[in-house]
């Protein structure tokens, strides 16, 4: 039995490493659209509105509305920040009553149940960040059919299941910014590894795919070593990053963190291993978690949009959709202190380009 087990295990290992050695592990297989190497903005073909429409919504123009925000999961820094942005916007608008509720783990089934219950309880608007674009669609369509205004942020659903989606940054934009920062820090021929949440998380999978495509196009000599999974777990991320450092030794020049949990944990691993300055950490993260490492010069730069702004924009977009001031075919929307935001890709609202935090500016942010 034991022999069989070992043989089977060996077989699995061989089969899988042979078949999937070509592309970066953890990326999805959707088509990629890497940006130009020199920073020329990508050309976006104008697209007609492809979002959904709520069925016979009551006239909500200017009236007080109750809104529920259902992120992928509650209890992590990133969605605490978006939730704060939504609350800020609700306070500023004065006629929005917003609360955040959701599953304690990024689970498609539980998120669907939460939304379903809120549809039944009769809210006016739903804000969501989808754990799975397709799985969430039926329940969102049900919300639209009940006349509820539905707006997504952070992680999209299929377009026809919601009205608008506030996009923090285009996938290819993230891919370019991350790989450019990486190449700058570890050199054009450096080797690096990736720490991600899980391979099934759509946003992370998309970013990895776009990073891979952009690297191939613009930094062909960068050497990807491997991708490891670390959930959204601090200690696991730390252990995984430490193992990578131990495994590759001097060969490893950089670690890319794909989540706001993985990046600070990787920076901690580098610090505790005494590899500051030898192993670069690049990644998505919130400034508060990264301040200690940036101030100690262990991490040069951190890539992120401002999640507080993301939540803030989402709340404004929902209000505009409920008021009827944001209609299919519009090309921009006013979002309070953020000013005019552009409509792209049919029914997406672009928050802006990803922001790079560094030692000079990180002190100005608190989230």
């Amino acid at each position, binding site marked *: 039995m034991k022999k069989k087990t070992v043989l089977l295990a060996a077989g*699995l290992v061989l089969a*899988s490493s042979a078949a*999937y050695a070509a592309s970066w592990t*953890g990326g*999805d*297989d959707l088509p990629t659209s890497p940006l130009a190497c020199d920073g020329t903005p990508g050309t976006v073909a104008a697209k007609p509105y492809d979002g959904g429409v709520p069925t016979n919504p009551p006239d909500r123009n200017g009236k007080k509305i109750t809104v529920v925000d259902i992120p992928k999961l*509650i209890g992590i820094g990133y969605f605490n920040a978006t939730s704060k942005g939504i609350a800020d916007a609700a306070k500023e608008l004065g006629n929005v009553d917003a*609360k955040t*509720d*959701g*599953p*304690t*783990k990024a*689970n*498609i*089934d*539980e998120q*669907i*149940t*939460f939304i*379903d*219950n*809120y549809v*039944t*309880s*009769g809210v006016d608007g739903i804000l969501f960040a989808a754990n*799975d674009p*397709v*799985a969430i*669609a*039926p329940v969102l369509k049900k919300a639209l059919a009940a006349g509820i205004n539905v707006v997504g942020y952070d992680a999209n659903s299929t377009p026809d299941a919601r009205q608008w989606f506030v996009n923090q940054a285009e996938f290819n934009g993230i891919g370019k910014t991350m790989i450019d920062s990486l190449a700058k820090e570890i050199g054009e021929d450096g080797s690096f590894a990736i720490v991600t949440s*899980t*391979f*099934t998380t759509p946003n992370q*999978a998309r970013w990895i795919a776009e990073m891979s495509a952009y690297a191939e196009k613009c930094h062909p000599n960068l050497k990807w070593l491997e991708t490891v999974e670390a959930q959204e777990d601090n200690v696991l991320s730390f252990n995984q990053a430490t193992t990578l450092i131990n495994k590759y030794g001097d060969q490893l020049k950089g670690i890319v963190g794909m989540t706001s949990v993985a990046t600070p944990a990787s920076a901690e691993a580098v610090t505790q291993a005494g590899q500051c300055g030898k192993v670069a950490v690049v990644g998505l993260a919130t400034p508060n978690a990264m301040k200690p490492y940036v101030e100690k010069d262990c991490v040069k730069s951190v890539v992120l949009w401002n999640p507080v702004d993301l939540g803030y924009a989402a709340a404004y977009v929902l209000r505009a959709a409920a008021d009827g001031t944001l209609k299919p075919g519009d090309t921009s929307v006013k979002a309070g202190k953020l000013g005019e935001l552009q409509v792209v890709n049919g029914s997406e609202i672009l928050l802006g380009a990803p922001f790079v935090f560094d030692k000079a500016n990180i002190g100005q942010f608190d989230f």
Partner: protein
Amino acid sequence: MTLRSFLRHEAVLGFLLIVVLFLLAQQSDKFFTTANILNQGRLMAEVGLIALPMTFVIITGGIDLSVGSILGLCAILLGVFWHNLGLPLPVAMVLAIVVGGIAGLINGLIITRFKVPPLIATLATLALYRGLAEGISQARSVRGYPDWFFVLGQGEVLGVPTQLWILVIFAIIAAAILGLTTFGRATYAVGANETAARFSGINVDRTKLLIYTGAGLISGLAAVIFVSRVSTTRSDMGTGVELDVITAVVLGGTSIFGGRGTIIGTVVGLILVQALKNGLALSGVKGDGTIVVIGLVLILAILATNLFSRNGDG
């Protein structure tokens, strides 16, 4: 086990359920509507289905922690059989369920042939089956099923969600098997005293094999319904389902030590948990608060039953 102790468990639970339903209906006028109740039936179908064979498993004194992983594996295989291997969807559905049965059979074989305690055996296969789902899927989802397939998870028959019919039919069958057949009596006998059961001529190993295989098959069926409900496959589907299932079963009065329990109890336990989740959400309690309440109810319900039956025994 006497009929009296039977009734005592169900009486306490039934009373609790009525109180809970009454209180929740006071809190929200959306709670006691036909649409909401039917919809809740849809949402609890997968957990409910798996809870049926789990009742058998726990009555034999065993446990099956791998059901959530089997669900994930079967969901992935449904997609792979249909999309990657190009089989007709009905064939893929049947094959996925069969694989669930095989996974359950493997659990059963490890438990009966190698005498590995069920908790350890299914802890190992929990990791193994989930791992196979991840490995086979390579984190890819399969989508784009034909419309007829969604009847199972999103459709209705005679105004009632399809999967609720399935759940009701299976619950009746399970109750009949457990309550009326030799197999049901063998299940209780195995859990009450395995050695005595063996001596009285019951084929203990065969009984257990059938039960674990059944748990696998039903998990496979739940997987098909789940895929139809959410219209995609992911390798992390069903993570943590085992705890929801076990909560419903033990809340329903099935003894974790074996030998005692009923399908009716399990069904009441299921409805109680689902009503709490839904009703508390409708009355404005957040998800984290709901989790706390369910934990408290679980402990208090068993506590009440214990105190009650002890007093009764004098």
